[in-house]
């Protein structure tokens, strides 16, 4: 068998092309502002985008089934606000217990999404849009429009303090678990099966409804945990927290090569996608791009990467086809 040329290797895998994009980004930013490549800065990219990294894993599962969940940051706010208030009124101060409560709220929210989408056959974007308003509204209602502030969450916020290991540990565990789950477990393969061909999956004996309900529950679980983390990292809980950030999570998946039509995407790609999103938001203020230009440039970069993705995908399919003909 003949060795692949570098060109073939690069066009041969989506992840490889993302790595190239990443390296180019790092070099460009690093040349303009060398301090960007410092250890502290790289660490902060992960810390500031922990929530995006974490929720992108759930979004990967949801998008693999050709679904979408836009209620995630509302779930995040509801869970985060709840655990913020529990501390404000001195009910619970145990960090572990707070995580359990936040995760439980997230699971509940996600499960409702899952049941309605799987059993009620409601379009995912419609169902999650409803809950997007409901949970965001709930966050306002339970907080009575107030914050849980720095002094209320003192102690708990040490968990997510800049330099504390907590958030990184959660990220590493989550990515390892999901990597193994999506690649080597029966459940992970079921998700791919349901997404690439629902009918075929059903015929081959997969319980499609249960799989669908599960992915939204997983998404809710991660959003709940992200809510707790958010309160810890930013040392306060506001009902409007992370408003509109679900788009960053979806963008991370799309950049990472997850197809909106389902069945295609990987944990590694999602990781790279989230990393690119994180680098963009961290780098733009550091390379002295005026504030007013930052959103515009972010959009251009996202589109450019996605187009590159599509092109890579096509070449890949063409090569596969050629190989089969031979």
């Amino acid at each position: 068998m003949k060795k692949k040329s570098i060109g073939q290797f690069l066009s041969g895998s989506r992840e490889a092309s993302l790595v190239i994009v990443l390296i180019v980004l790092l070099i460009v930013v690093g040349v303009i502002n060398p301090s960007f490549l410092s250890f502290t800065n790289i660490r902060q990219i992960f810390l500031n985008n922990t929530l995006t990294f974490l929720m992108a894993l759930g979004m990967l599962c949801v998008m693999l089934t050709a679904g979408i969940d836009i209620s995630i940051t509302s779930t995040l706010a509801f869970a985060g606000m709840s655990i913020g208030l529990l501390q404000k009124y001195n009910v619970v101060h145990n960090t572990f217990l707070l995580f359990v409560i936040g995760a439980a709220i997230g699971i509940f929210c996600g499960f409702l999404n899952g049941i309605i989408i799987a059993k009620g056959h409601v379009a995912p974007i419609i169902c999650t849009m409803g809950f997007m308003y409901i949970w965001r509204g709930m966050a306002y209602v339970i907080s009575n429009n107030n914050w849980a502030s720095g002094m209320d969450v003192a102690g708990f916020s040490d968990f997510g303090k800049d330099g504390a290991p907590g958030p990184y540990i959660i990220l590493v565990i989550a990515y390892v678990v999901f990597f193994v789950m999506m690649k080597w477990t029966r459940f992970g393969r079921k998700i791919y099966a349901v997404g690439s061909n629902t009918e075929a999956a059903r015929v081959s004996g997969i319980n499609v409804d249960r799989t669908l309900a599960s992915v939204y529950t997983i998404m809710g679980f991660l959003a709940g945990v992200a809510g707790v983390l958010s309160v810890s990292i930013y040392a306060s809980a506001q009902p409007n927290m992370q408003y509109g950030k679900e788009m960053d999570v979806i963008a991370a998946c799309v950049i990472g090569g997850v197809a909106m039509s389902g069945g295609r995407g990987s944990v590694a790609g999602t990781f790279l996608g989230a990393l690119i999103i994180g680098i963009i938001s961290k780098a733009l203020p550091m390379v002295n791009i005026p504030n007013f230009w930052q959103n515009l440039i972010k959009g251009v970069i996202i589109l450019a990467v996605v187009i590159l993705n599509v092109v890579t995908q096509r070449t890949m399919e063409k090569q596969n086809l050629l190989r089969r003909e031979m």
Partner: protein
Amino acid sequence: MKKKLLSVILATAVAASLLAGCGSSAADTAAPAADAAAPAADAAAPADSSGGGKTYALVTKSAGNPFMERMASGFQEVVEAQGGTVVIQNPEAATPDAQISVIQSLISQGVDSIAVDGNDANALTAVLTEASGKGIKILTLDSDVAPDTRTVYCNQAGVSQIGETLMEAVYDLTGGEGDWAILSATSQATNQNAWIDAMKKLMESDSKYAKLNLVEVAYGDDEPQKSTDQTQALLQNYPDLKVICAPTTVGIAAAAKVLQDQKSSVKLTGLGLPSEMAEYIGEDDAHSCPYMYLWNPIDLGRLAGYTSIALVDGSITGAAGDSFKAGDLGDYTIEEIDGSTQIILGPPFKFDPSNIDEWKTVY
């Protein structure tokens, strides 16, 4: 059969959500009454029921902001003590379009006055002109709109007063020379820009500040995550930075946390909420913010309440020189500042280690 069932369910759901909607808005206006109960006692004394039978509306910047919540509670306390009806509207997002739709619905409700905390100086012009045309008295508080679209602006503190106070704080914390930066909210926030301009003008005109170097005005959009990114970028881009001045409550809290977590030697000042900032205020190196300023949002809301009542009962028209009694806040006269009519609440209040413990439970 199935279709019928579905439509019944849908109809019930719509009805239920409508009911829920009414319920929650009623709860919304009623809720702040509880916080306001304590100071209401002394304010109720001079009540002459001049506000009776009228409806006074307040449009805040956005929901989910404790400063707005306190402001609304002051407004509500005053108006209700005078026997008026209060409508408080918190737009979902801090944008002018969200405020426009809220104001339109207030116009169709036929309220007597609308006090607006403007999210944009000019975008509200059309809707406010329409409201004035219907005989509704328009005033602004906290953040102003174009002067010819409202009668008077209840200013928490004069722009130049805030500029001077903050500039003096920067001067004090830097030791009179060196690099400093500003972390603001959004780039269109009217009040933020006015304060920043005032500070810039002072730096140009007063030779005392000649050795101070303003390196950047960063915008955190009043989002904790973006404010954190921006603060970290400031620290990395300007290694000689001495002071960050954040005249916004969300920005200052995010910056305070970044500086304190990193044990940075950069000091912070600006405008912040005591309850949010209590963790970070202290003289020693373990705290990032030696002192900061703010006005009393409850008093600002109360001033707007008294002003609304005076405008509706005709005792003032909003012209410069008009004066009126704002309950126990004292007497106020409308002043003409830079071609716009304003009522100034008072100088900003300083929060430092000596008084923060007492204020952090208030707001």
